[in-house]
């Protein structure tokens, strides 16, 4: 914590917090105790299902703890009216979660409105916040969310979270829904905003790189929200507390390897293909014969132009036309890092790979990539063992 500026944030204390869902044997959060100092960014990371989001949502009581105490600035959150509590705790969600029928100004001005601020005070605040998140107020104030790009929506989402100048801001995977370049920019902006405002920010992410980048402290959770390590990013990286943390953080070294390998190194999967204008029942039969649940549509030049679930085809007589320019594919020379990125953003959990002249080659999926990584790792281990053996014999 800096000594030259007084933080406007408040500290948060979790004492023996338990969340148990009915019908589940193990509690989702099992006796979590934690102190979050005022004015710091604390990142909650861990594998999915570890209880990080549950822990976050208990702070503003979107989820009520089964037992235990949560205090913000020394006050028990359960002692307060729940709506009032939330109006004083900023909440930023993945993708911004803007209300589509409200303009940007209405979205940001929502909480000030709930707090009965006057009209002119609210509209001044909206403009101030739009400036802060790097959007020109005159241009964006009266737009609707659908007229904004994903990154802009997320910026407005952050502005909405900051609107009533709350001491504490909760963020639930705030930058998970935007492309990597925008994400990086938004992260940088958040850091510069925090330099100015010194809020207490609690942020959930599954991305250890994001945690390392943004966090003053990182809380690494194991299943049941067991604290594996709660420390500064440096400490987490340099002296991981246990094998779990080591594994979790160490995933980064494999990630680096992903940038060295190409899609063409990986075994591609086959899938059913269809052409625009082909009769749908035939395509469906073909796909079912192969137990496929989706088909890749190719255009006259063999370029993939759409990847449809079978149910999307049903109801059509013939396979419709699509524009290949608008379809996201993966060049076979792309890195596995890019491949994973594309797969993650695809509803199929895989990506269509193209070769020369953008012609269809095959499909790459998570299994292929993980198999490949495993194989490389085994190879590495074997070489290492062989090296060691050679070293001994020499």
């Amino acid at each position, binding site marked *: 914590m800096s000594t030259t500026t007084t933080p406007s944030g408040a500290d948060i204390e979790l004492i023996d917090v338990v969340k148990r869902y009915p019908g589940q044997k193990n509690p989702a959060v099992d006796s979590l105790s934690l102190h979050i100092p005022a004015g710091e960014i604390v990142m909650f990371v861990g594998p999915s299902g570890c209880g990080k989001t549950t822990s976050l949502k208990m702070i*503003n009581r*979107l989820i009520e703890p089964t037992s235990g105490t949560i205090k913000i600035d020394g006050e028990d959150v359960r002692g307060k009216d729940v*709506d*009032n*509590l*939330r*109006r*004083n705790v900023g*909440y930023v*969600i*993945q*993708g911004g*979660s803007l*209300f*589509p*029928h*409200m*303009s940007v100004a209405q979205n940001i001005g*929502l*909480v000030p409105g*709930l707090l009965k601020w006057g009209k002119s005070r609210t509209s001044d605040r909206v403009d101030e916040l739009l400036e802060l998140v790097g959007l020109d107020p005159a241009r964006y104030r009266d*737009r*609707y*969310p*659908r*007229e*904004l*790009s994903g990154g802009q929506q997320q910026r407005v989402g952050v502005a*909405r*979270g900051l609107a009533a100048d709350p001491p504490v801001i909760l963020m639930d995977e705030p930058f998970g829904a935007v492309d990597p370049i925008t994400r990086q920019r938004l992260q940088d902006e958040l850091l510069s905003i925090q330099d100015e405002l010194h809020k207490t920010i609690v942020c959930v992410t599954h991305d250890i790189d994001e945690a390392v980048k943004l966090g003053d402290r990182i809380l690494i959770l194991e299943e049941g929200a067991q604290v594996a390590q709660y420390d500064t990013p440096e400490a987490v990286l340099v002296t991981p507390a246990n094998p779990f943390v080591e594994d979790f953080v160490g995933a980064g070294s494999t990630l680096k390897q992903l940038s060295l390998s190409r899609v063409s190194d990986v075994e591609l999967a086959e899938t059913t293909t269809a052409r625009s204008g082909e009769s749908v029942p035939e395509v469906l039969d073909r796909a079912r014969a192969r137990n496929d649940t989706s088909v890749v549509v190719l255009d006259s030049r063999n370029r993939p132009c759409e990847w449809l679930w079978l149910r999307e085809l049903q109801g059509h007589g013939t396979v419709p036309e699509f524009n290949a320019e608008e379809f996201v594919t993966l060049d076979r020379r792309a890195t596995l890092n890019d491949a994973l990125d594309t797969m993650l953003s695809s509803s199929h959990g895989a990506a269509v790979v193209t070769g020369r002249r953008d012609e269809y080659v095959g499909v790459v999926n998570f299994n292929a990539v993980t198999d490949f990584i495993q194989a490389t790792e085994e190879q590495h281990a074997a070489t290492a063992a062989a090296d060691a053996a050679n070293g001994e014999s020499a």
Partner: protein
Amino acid sequence: MSAAEDPAAVARDERTSGGESRLMLFVLPAVVVLVFIGWVIWRQTANLDSIEERQLAWVVIGRLSWEHIQLTLVSTFFVLIVAIPLGVALTRPRFKKAAPVAIGIANAGQAAPSIGLIVLLAIWLSFGFWTAILSLTLYAILPVLRNTIVGLEGVDPTLVEAGRGVGMSAAAVLLRIELPLAVPVIMSGVRTALVLLVGTATLATFINAGGLGSLIITGINLFRYPIVVSGALLVALLALLIDWAGRVLEMYARPKGI
């Protein structure tokens, strides 16, 4: 920012290209007016006998049409005040489990032959306007109820949670987020109900509740085809007109931005 990066431009394009429904907005009333003018000309020039003259007198036509509109609008009003709150209640966690039951009952209401419903209710209660309203209301609850439920369930749950998360009460989330976002779906249910009701209101004449149906029945009883066809034509025109009004309403009720 370059033009390509500016989604506002794209969004505006999309909005102006709602071709089909826009066409309906202008063409539909034009067709209705033209056909109606044609009918008026026929009515003024045709050779009608005294029974036909009496049945198709302007006063009678005016009264019957007005009765028909009243039947339609009053029952729509009751459909709305029953089906929308019911739909809201059935999407709240407390009553969610009852939703299939309520939909089932509403389904039965619509599946039951409307003529049976209207006559049985009349025998049980009494003949006349309000019994007709009751049976019409029962008959048309389903589309509005179902669309209210579907519309509310279609609201992205993360938006509801976002609303609660920033400190809106459950009621505020319902009124300011869920209902506005469900409006397009609800309104199309209302339009369906309106059109159903215009058609079904022709049966009201069987229990002495008036409406354009009486032209059709009289015409059939007296073997006067001009009367039957006039009645049927006027009901059809009214249905199209009300469908058009529903579309206009739908367009204006749709919140901006979605």
